[in-house]
């Protein structure tokens, strides 16, 4: 049994909130750079160049890459041989509070969905815990902006819709979103499970680096096919037209019911942020 003081968790979350919002993950940067090189349409290329310049501008001025510094989605893979000394969830919320306040990040959370009212410190975090064997503790902060989150969709498809119906749902989601989610987008796609699990799978898929395909060759091929179809839509960077509509997508699948084919697309943008620490 390994003991981790709750204060360590707080410190880690605070630092990860700032890191995630000011520095894009290497795989997302690489995908954006590759898209700039491959983009044939002049206005689209200019637009991608400007998105690239923004990363430099953020670094130089110490500014967040995007003003929507998001809802703090915190994922913890917690070893069953770990004891957290203190209040686990409170420690994470406190880390978000410190990171967003001390890091001059925007406070975008309202205390109640209908009655609204900003909480003033970007808490609470949206926490997901996954138990794992051993005594490890891995924390990932993935701030999620809502310009893209609002374009996400869940559908309870019919088994007869099959792979073609599933692909159509994903492509239609991007077509309908158009310019709203700040393309080029990045997609987390879930398929299978139940109504709630499929949405979780889509969110989880956004955590996978863009250069890592699905380990199942069938799904890896589906990922490539979908990317190609989406980049044939012509929406382009910012919706101004062009080849680069999607920088990458990941599918996560799980077993489902004989009567169902749940599918979900969690839409994210070219500023797909995540930062990880091991405690």
């Amino acid at each position, binding site marked *: 049994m390994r003991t981790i003081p709750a204060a360590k968790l707080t410190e880690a979350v605070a630092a990860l909130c700032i890191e995630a919002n000011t520095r894009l993950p290497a795989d997302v940067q690489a995908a954006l750079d590759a898209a700039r090189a491959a983009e044939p*349409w002049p*206005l*689209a290329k200019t*637009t991608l160049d*400007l*998105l690239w*310049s*923004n*990363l430099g*501008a*953020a670094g130089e*001025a*110490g*500014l*967040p*890459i*995007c*003003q*929507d*510094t998001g809802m703090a989605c915190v994922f913890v893979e917690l070893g069953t041989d770990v004891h957290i000394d203190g209040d686990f969830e409170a420690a994470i919320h406190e880390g978000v509070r410190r990171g967003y306040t001390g890091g*001059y*990040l*925007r*406070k*975008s959370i309202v205390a109640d969905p209908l009655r*609204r009212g*900003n909480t*003033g410190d970007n808490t609470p975090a949206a926490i997901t815990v996954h138990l794992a064997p051993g005594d490890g503790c891995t924390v990932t902060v993935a701030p999620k*902006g809502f*310009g893209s989150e*609002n374009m996400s969709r869940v559908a309870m498809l019919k088994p007869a819709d099959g792979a073609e119906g599933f692909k159509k749902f994903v492509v239609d989601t991007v077509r309908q979103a*158009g*310019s*709203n989610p*700040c393309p080029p987008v990045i997609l987390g796609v879930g398929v299978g499970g139940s109504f709630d699990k499929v949405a979780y799978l889509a969110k989880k898929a956004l955590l996978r680096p863009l250069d890592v395909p699905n380990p199942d060759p069938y799904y890896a091929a589906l990922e490539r096919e979908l990317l190609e179809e989406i980049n044939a*839509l*012509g*929406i*382009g960077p*910012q*919706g*101004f*037209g*062009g*080849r680069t509509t999607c920088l990458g997508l990941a599918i996560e699948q799980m077993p489902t019911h004989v009567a169902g084919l749940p599918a979900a697309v969690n839409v994210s*943008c*070219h*500023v797909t942020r995540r930062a990880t620490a091991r405690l």
Partner: protein
Amino acid sequence: MEYKLTAPCAAADLAPLRAGDTVLLSGVVYTARDQAHKRMMEALDAGEALPFPLEGSAIYYVGPTPERPGQVIGSAGPTTSGRMDGMSPHRLDLGNKIMIGKGKRDAAVKAAVRRNGAVYLAALGGAGALMAQSVRSLEVIAWPDLGCEAVRRLVVQDMPLTVILDSVGGDLYESGPAAYLASL
């Protein structure tokens, strides 16, 4: 084409702009997004004055991050404009001439843009650090309780923007992708 404009603007200043053109905007820009639009609507309904003159105004849908000491503004890219669609035609009819945001607008907004000789310009979504570079000064002028959604008066210089909706019915979100696909 690239145009340099200084806000506030008259319809005549905006008439040459066409969807796809670049605008380098200088002058005064007011920030207002969801809650500020709602309060402006309530003020108008109650016959009260608005926090800024609408005539010729440029309104930027943005909620910036807090500025650090010594900085003019934090990160300041556009938010999704569609959430303001229900309230924008009324503002345009009262004199607002330039809307700055990102994403699709509805048919009523497009009609109000044409009717009033206005324009809808896109700032770069997700490029808040870049957009911040053209902001020279910032002053919160109304509803500070709204935090990032408070109304701010910005003075900007050469803010890089793209014309989406022009006064003759052009829409880059339709014509841009169509032109690219036709080129294949």
